[in-house]
């Protein structure tokens, strides 16, 4: 594989790598006929991102692979190493004129060479590993809801949440308003956690086609990475989502670039039966003047009980603790993955037991789909066609 990125696109490539670095520890490079795809997945398999750069993005693009079999070579590199090449975006912009990525057959290193000002060339020889195709199973057509907004609107929305916030809930409200709310874990005491909620009017979005009363909860940390890229590239961001538990898909595209971020969402099978909670479910009132502030009766309750005891406070209803779904079907893949997940708890990503990494089923099995019968298929495996 050989490709050359020139001029302003070097910074775009750099930003893409930064965005991917917020998600996973390894970057997968996959040259295809339709372009070079950079992908990553997080350790708990609850987030997947891919940046597909079309051949036109490059000054020179040779996917490689000698005829006749044209087998295209895939590899993965440690994110830390790859990011190291593109670490300083300002200096990329100021000094780098061209970036060459070269992988010769039988080579032991992936070469990333930056051609900089004043005749300086920086060559990075990165160790890589051959790998299977990394592909999340998802289909935006199957999502019941979608929204599209300028990246700036979403970035301005997300700024109200603390940088350490793990999960956020996106929901719909009356009047077509869209809400973003921080998600409070079941285990955290509802009476001690601050809840922040932001409402955006429908006309702030370029497109809103959402199922009324729908909402999903996803990890904010991984989303922020994509949002930074979107803001810098000034592209509108589309969010496709379905029922809670089904992955949410965030997409960005322009003539030479296609970006997908797939995030697992919190599943809540009892959401239909759940009475409105502190975290709201379907019928969140839009903010209005009539808050109920019935503190008189509360004060009476307080006066008659010790201050220290929380007993005077009416307990807030919380999300039901739902037991993790038993490992479905495909015993070897799922169980292995679940065991891996248990060990590698990553802060900032959703707790493993609550998020179903549906979309990583058995796609990683080498040599073909082999989906077990009861595994939910979100999209037909396209590997057979190519």
């Amino acid at each position: 594989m050989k490709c050359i990125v020139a001029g302003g696109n070097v910074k775009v490539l750099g930003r893409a790598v930064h965005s991917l670095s917020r998600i996973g520890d390894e970057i997968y490079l996959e040259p295809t006929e339709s372009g070079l795809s950079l992908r990553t997945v997080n350790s708990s398999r609850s987030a997947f991102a891919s940046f597909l750069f079309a051949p036109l993005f490059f000054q020179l693009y040779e996917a490689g692979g000698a005829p006749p079999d044209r087998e295209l070579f895939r590899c993965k590199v440690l994110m830390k190493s790859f990011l190291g090449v593109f670490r300083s975006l300002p200096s990329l912009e100021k000094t780098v004129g061209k970036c060459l990525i070269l992988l010769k057959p039988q080579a032991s290193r992936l070469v990333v060479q930056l051609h900089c000002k004043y005749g300086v060339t920086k060559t990075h020889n990165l160790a890589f590993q051959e790998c299977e195709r990394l592909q999340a199973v998802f289909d935006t057509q199957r999502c019941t809801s979608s929204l599209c907004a300028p990246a700036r609107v979403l970035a301005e929305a997300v700024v109200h949440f603390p940088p350490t916030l793990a999960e956020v809930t996106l929901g719909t409200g009356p009047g077509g308003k869209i809400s973003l709310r921080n998600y409070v874990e079941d285990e955290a005491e509802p009476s001690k956690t601050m809840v922040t909620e932001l409402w955006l009017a429908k006309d702030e979005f370029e497109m809103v086609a959402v199922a009324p009363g729908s909402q999903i909860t996803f990890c904010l940390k991984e989303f922020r990475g994509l949002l930074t890229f979107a803001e810098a590239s000034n592209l509108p961001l589309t969010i496709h989502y379905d029922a809670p538990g089904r992955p949410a898909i965030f997409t960005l595209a322009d003539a030479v670039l296609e970006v997908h971020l797939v995030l697992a969402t919190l599943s809540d099978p009892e959401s239909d039966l759940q009475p409105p909670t502190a975290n709201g479910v379907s019928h969140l009132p839009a903010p209005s003047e009539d808050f109920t502030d019935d503190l008189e009766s509360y004060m009476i309750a307080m006066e008659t009980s010790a201050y220290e005891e929380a007993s005077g406070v009416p307990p807030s209803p919380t999300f039901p603790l739902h037991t993790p779904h038993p490992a479905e079907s495909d015993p070897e893949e799922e169980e292995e993955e679940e065991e891996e997940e248990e060990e590698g708890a990553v802060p900032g990503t959703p707790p493993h037991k609550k998020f179903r990494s549906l979309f990583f089923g058995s796609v990683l099995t080498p040599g073909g789909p082999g989906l077990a019968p009861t595994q939910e298929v979100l999209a037909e495996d396209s590997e057979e066609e190519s």
Partner: protein
Amino acid sequence: MRFRAKIVDLACLNHFSRVINTIAKLAKTCTLRLTVSKLYFILSDKVANGGVSMWCELCQGNFFDEFQMEGVAAEHNEIYLELVPENLARALKTAQSAKAVKIKLTNKHCPCLRVAVELPSLSSSSRIVTHDIPVGVIPRRLWNDFREPNVPDFDVSIYLPVLKTMKSVVERMKNLSNSIVIEANLNGEMNLKIETDLVSVTTHFKDLGNPPWTSEDGCQSSAQDRDPESMAEARIDIKKLQQLLAGQQVNPTKALCNIVSKRIVHFILLHEDVSLQYFIPALA
């Protein structure tokens, strides 16, 4: 019990945010006392705080365009709430370009201060961000714990040096020692001293000036009798002092401290519409 307030002026909002930021740096949890005309942020001297206490008073009229408060009862027309000031600081942090900020006491699932920020947006309707900050309502029988502390019977009262200078001195000293000695006399001289096994460092300030205090009965005898050269000193936790100085974002109109030798140091920082008193006890 009701409380609603609204800030529309950006300068007032900015000012209020700065006060909250200062309080957030000084106390993890504190008490907010609301009366018809004033707000107080109070930290009472419990062992958990390391014995420090704080009393911060603001006139609501200087900040809020609307302010309505109804206390627990007509003859006790006040509200005492326990809250985490950092939450309030965070809520106000991203409100700096707001059209309006409304604060309201609500009790939907648990008592909360609901901060609703109306932000300008390009669309027809504004963006609204609400922050529900959980608060604890403090019952009337505990209100006595939060009375205004008396000015102690101090040995020396002196104006502080320029806070920025004092802060940078204390910050460097913090790296060397856990405790610092503040000593001052009625001649306007103050020394900040640290002493460890390896090193001792003293910073001398001169010509600071001593505030004229008149006691209520017009008697100044105790202060007048004192030898102006004689230093009153107290050894205090350096981190607490550093926190106090670091939290000041604006130069106060007046800044002074009262030292009770070997007992306590009482800091008073006065701005136009906010007064802050901070007590740091001497270490054993």
